[in-house]
C-alpha cells in the first residue's frame, strides 16, 4: 500500500507540474507584461508544493500507524486481560494477535485474541484506504491553492529555489540529526540502565555477568554489571592489534616513501587498498579458521595452554586489518614533509635511513601520531573480528593467551536475538555503547585536530 501511495503522490506531482507549466506558458503568450519566471518554474512550484507535504504525511502515517493501531487494540481488549499486566505481557498479546492475522497459529488462541485479530484486520484495511484518501485530498487541495497563486509577475523561480535551498539545508543538518539521534538514544537507554544499576558499579565494578534469571522464581545471581573486565579486555586486544599494525604499517610507509621505486609503489599501494577493503567479517572468519588454531598449536609447542579464542588471535587479526590504515596515513604524513627538507639532509651526506629517522620522521611525527590515534579508535570500535574470534566471558586479565571479551562483543551478544527494552541486560548494551561512543569520539577529535594542525604547518 505504501507503494501505491507513493505512486499516487508521484502522479499527482506530475499532474501538478503540467497544470502549473501550462498556466505559465499561457501567461507567456497572452499576458501583456513580461513574465518573471519560465513556465517550467511555475510547474515545478506547484509540483513541489503538492509532492513534499504529501510525502511527509505519508512517512508520518506509515511510521505511526502500527503503534496507533496497537494502542487501539490494547485498549479494546477486555479489561480483565490488560489490568495489571506488565509491558512484556501486553507485548505478548500483541504478538499473538499479529500472529493470528498472518495465520501463524500455534494451538487454539483464546476468543478474545481471535476477536482482536479480526478487529486488527478490519482496522488495517480501513487505515490503508484512509491513507490513500487523505493523501489524495491533501494533494488536490494544495494543487488548487498553489495554482491560484500563479500570475505573470509571480516569482516562481525564486520560490522554487527557496524550497530547494531549504531541502538542501535539511539534508546537511541530517548529519547533525544523526549525531543527535546517536547521542539521544544512547543517553536515553543508558539513563534507564543507570536507574537499575548505579553508575559507579558499572564503571568501577570488577565483575561482569549480565545473564539474569529468565523466570521470576529462578534462583540465580541477579546479574553483575561491573564493566572493568570488559574495558580491560578491549584495551588488551586493541593494544595487541596496535603492536602488530604500528611497526608493519610504519615500516611499510617508510619503505614506500624513501626506498621504493615508482613501480614497486604502484604495485604495493593497491595491494594495501585490497587489505583495507576486505570486510571485517572476512577477517573474523580468517581468525577463527586459520589464526586461532595456529596460535593454539604454536602455544602447545611452547607448552603454553592457549585459549581457543585467545586475545592474541583476535588482536593479531585486527592488527592485520589496521596495517593499511596506518601505512596510508603515515605515507601521507611523510609525503607532506617538504621535499626541500629531504634534499637538504641528503645533500649533507646523510644516508637515506639517516634522512628518514633524523629529519623526515621527526617532522612527520604529529601526522603519524594522529594516524595512530585514529587507528586505535578503529581498533576499539571494531566489532566483527572480536565477535567471531574473542571470548564471551569477561576475564580480568592481561594475559594475551587467555580469552577476554570486549565492549563491542558484549553489545552484540546482549542485543542479538529478541530484545526487550526493559531488562538491564539489553540496556547494559546501550551503556557500553555510550562509553564506546565517547571514547572513540575523543580519540577522533584529538586525532583530526593533530592531523589538521600538522597539515596547516606545511601548507
Amino acid at each position, binding site marked *: 500500500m505504501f507503494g501505491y501511495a507513493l505512486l499516487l503522490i508521484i502522479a499527482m506531482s506530475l499532474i501538478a507540474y503540467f497544470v502549473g507549466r501550462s498556466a505559465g506558458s499561457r501567461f507567456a503568450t497572452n499576458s501583456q507584461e513580461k513574465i518573471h519566471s519560465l513556465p517550467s518554474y511555475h510547474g515545478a512550484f506547484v509540483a513541489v508544493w503538492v509532492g513534499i507535504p504529501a510525502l511527509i504525511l505519508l512517512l508520518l502515517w506509515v511510521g505511526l500507524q502500527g503503534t496507533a493501531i496497537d494502542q487501539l487494540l490494547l485498549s479494546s481488549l477486555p479489561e480483565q486481560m490488560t489490568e495489571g499486566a506488565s509491558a512484556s505481557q501486553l507485548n505478548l498479546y500483541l504478538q499473538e494477535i499479529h500472529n493470528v492475522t498472518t495465520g501463524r497459529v500455534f494451538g487454539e488462541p483464546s476468543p478474545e485474541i481471535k476477536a482482536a485479530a479480526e478487529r486488527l484486520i478490519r482496522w488495517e484495511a480501513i487505515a490503508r484506504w484512509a491513507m490513500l484518501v487523505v493523501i489524495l485530498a491533501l494533494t488536490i487541495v494544495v494543487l488548487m491553492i498553489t495554482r491560484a497563486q500563479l500570475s505573470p509577475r509571480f516569482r516562481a523561480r525564486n520560490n522554487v529555489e527557496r524550497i530547494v535551498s531549504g531541502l538542501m539545508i535539511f539534508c546537511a543538518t541530517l548529519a547533525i540529526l544523526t549525531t543527535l539521534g546517536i547521542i539521544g538514544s544512547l543517553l536515553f537507554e543508558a539513563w534507564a540502565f543507570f536507574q537499575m544499576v548505579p553508575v559507579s558499579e558499572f564503571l568501577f565494578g570488577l565483575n561482569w555477568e549480565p545473564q539474569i534469571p529468565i523466570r521470576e522464581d529462578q534462583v540465580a545471581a541477579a546479574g553483575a554489571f561491573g564493566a572493568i573486565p570488559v574495558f580491560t579486555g578491549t584495551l588488551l586486544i586493541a593494544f595487541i592489534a596496535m603492536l602488530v599494525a604500528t611497526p608493519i604499517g610504519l615500516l611499510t610507509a617508510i619503505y614506500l616513501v624513501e626506498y621504493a*621505486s*615508482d613501480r614497486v609503489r604502484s604495485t604495493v599501494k593497491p595491494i594495501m587498498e585490497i587489505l583495507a577493503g576486505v570486510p571485517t567479517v572476512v577477517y573474523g572468519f580468517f581468525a577463527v579458521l586459520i589464526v586461532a588454531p595456529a596460535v593454539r598449536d604454536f602455544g602447545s609447542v611452547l607448552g603454553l595452554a592457549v585459549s581457543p579464542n585467545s586475545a592474541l588471535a583476535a588482536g593479531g587479526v585486527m592488527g592485520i586489518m589496521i596495517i593499511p590504515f596506518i601505512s596510508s596515513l603515515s605515507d601521507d604524513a611523510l609525503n607532506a614533509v*617538504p621535499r*626541500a*627538507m*629531504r*634534499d*637538504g*639532509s*641528503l*645533500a*649533507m*651526506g*646523510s*644516508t637515506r635511513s*639517516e634522512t628518514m629517522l*633524523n*629529519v623526515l620522521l*621527526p*617532522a612527520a611525527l604529529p601526522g603519524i601520531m594522529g594516524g595512530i590515534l585514529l587507528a586505535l579508535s578503529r581498533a576499539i570500535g571494531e566489532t566483527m573480528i572480536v565477535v567471531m574470534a574473542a571470548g564471551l566471558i569477561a576475564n580480568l586479565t592481561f594475559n594475551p593467551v587467555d580469552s577476554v571479551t570486549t565492549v563491542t562483543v558484549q553489545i552484540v551478544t546482549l542485543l542479538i536475538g529478541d530484545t526487550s527494552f526493559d531488562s538491564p541486560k539489553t540496556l547494559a548494551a546501550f551503556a557500553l555503547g555510550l562509553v564506546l561512543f565517547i571514547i572513540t569520539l575523543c580519540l577522533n577529535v584529538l586525532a583530526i585536530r593533530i592531523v589538521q594542525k600538522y597539515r596547516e604547518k606545511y601548507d
Partner: protein
Amino acid sequence: MSAVAVAANDKAFETVRTPDPEPRPIKIKASDVSVFYGEKQALFDVSIDIPERAVTAFIGPSGCGKSTFLRCFNRMNDTIDICRVTGEMLVSDANIYDPRLDVVELRARVGMVFQKPNPFPKSIWDNIAYGPKIHGLAKTKAEFDVIVEESLQKAGLWNEVKDRLHEPGTGLSGGQQQRLCIARAVAVSPEVILMDEPCSALDPIATAKVEELIDELRENYTIVIVTHSMQQAARVSQRTAFFHLGILVEEGPTNVLFTSPKEKRTQDYITGRFG
C-alpha cells in the same frame, strides 16, 4: 703560485670586486656531461673546468639546465628516479660517477645550499651539529660546541643567534635561515660548496649579506653558484659560465664574459635582449 698568494691577491681587488684572471689549480673537471630525464635530454655534452678557491657562477635563462648541471656535482640527481647522467666528472681528480664511490662521502666533501632556505625542524644548534654528528667529525659536546660556533662565525650569524642556539631554526628570518643553511654546509668542512640560487627567496638586504658572505668564504672553499641575476654573478664571481637550452654557450673570467663576450647569444642575454 701558492694558494695563500692567490688569496692575498684577491684581497687587493676586493673593493672593486674585480675577478682575477690568474690561472688557478682545477678543482672540478667535467667532460661531456649529459643529463636525461626519462626520454628528454636536459643537458648536452657540457665540459668545464672549475678552479679552486674561487667563485664560479652559472647564469642563463630559467630552464637552461644550470641547476641540473649543478646537481651533478654532488650527485643529487640520483634522488630523482628517472634521471640519468652520462659523461665524466672529476672532483679533486676522483671520478664521482665511479660506481665504487660512496655518495655519502662525496656529499660531505661537496656541500650544497638550496634555493629556498630549508633548515631542519630542529634547534639552531642541532641544525649545525647534524652533519658533523652523522659524519663522526666530533665526539664530545665541547667539540660540537666549537664546530657550531665556528660555523656560525663563518656564516656571520654567530652574533645574531648565540643567545638562542636551542630555539628552532625555523623561527629565524629568511635571510638568517639561509645563512644558517650555509653554516650547516660549512660545518662538515667541505671542499666545495654548491649554491642553487641562494638569494632568490631573500630581500635585497639579506641578499647583500649573503653575497658578502660568499665573497669571504671563497678564501677557503671552492664555490659554484647558480644565479638568475647577472648583477649578482658580476658582483660575486671570478668566473662565469653562460648556459642556454642545455648547452654551455660560453665560459670565462667574469669581467671578460661581461665586457666582451665571444658569442652573440651571450651578448644578447647580458644586454637583456632575452632572458
